[in-house]
């Protein structure tokens, strides 16, 4: 399944709805391009909704980490919403739950941004 992403505003937060696979090739490239685009528009508070992302490989993980550090470097925040079980388990075994803030409810996630 090819990767797709759309974004919408929820107050000061930009919610990015992604679907498909974030893996080597198009998936990782799309995430990188999208984050750069949002930062260029001074959208530095980003909530990645991964409800329809059922697969991430090590390249995708690397891209998530890269996006996280890039956004943070710009003084912003990037958080994750609605992980599927496979993505949840992957972030757990790679200890990235200690890095990312993860939410199951969009409203609570939005409220958590400073």
């Amino acid at each position: 399944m090819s990767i797709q992403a759309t974004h919408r505003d929820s107050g000061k937060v930009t919610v990015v709805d992604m679907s498909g696979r974030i893996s080597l090739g198009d998936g990782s490239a799309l995430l990188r391009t999208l984050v750069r685009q949002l930062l260029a528009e001074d959208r530095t508070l980003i909530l990645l909704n991964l409800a329809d992302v059922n697969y991430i490989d090590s390249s995708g993980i690397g891209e998530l980490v890269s996006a996280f550090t890039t956004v943070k470097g710009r003084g912003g925040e990037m958080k994750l919403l609605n992980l599927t079980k496979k993505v949840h388990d992957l972030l757990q075994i790679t200890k990235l739950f200690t890095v990312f803030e993860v939410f199951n409810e969009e409203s609570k996630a939005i409220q958590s941004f400073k």
Partner: protein
Amino acid sequence: MTPQSKQLETTLETQVESVNLAEEMCLRVAEAAGFGEEDCYRIGMSVREGVINAFHYGNQERPDRKIHLTVELTSEKLIIHVMDEGKGFKLGDVPDPLAEENLLSTSGRGIFLMRSFMDDFDVVEGRTGGAEIIMSKRLPSAAKPLGDSAVGHGNEGKDPHQEA
């Protein structure tokens, strides 16, 4: 290779498309061998990571180098070999991606994922002089009897040849 085993060998180009191709090929063998959805996911992910490793680190993304993929199905397990044409590496030299100082690294998790998802994992020097990843997963107890169908549908790779 034991008399009861089936083996499929494929030579892949050093290109991104080979990652998906290798994954699809191994998934077909794994499904035919009776592995369930979760095991197939883990096998598929491990094959991806092995080929990504060969593509990026081993062959340095050089198109003049090849990736050699072998899938072997025995009465006990599925064994996958991924060999590159690079300089090889030692497992002991691979940084621990779970170490605090590496958590924000944007790469270096492939070996860890293969080790986590497969029953056995090792890296040896391949006949090309590059690294050869060898990883295996035991067949589920409910696996169907091995037959030609288990490896007969997975030869979509470039320049494939099958050995029985």
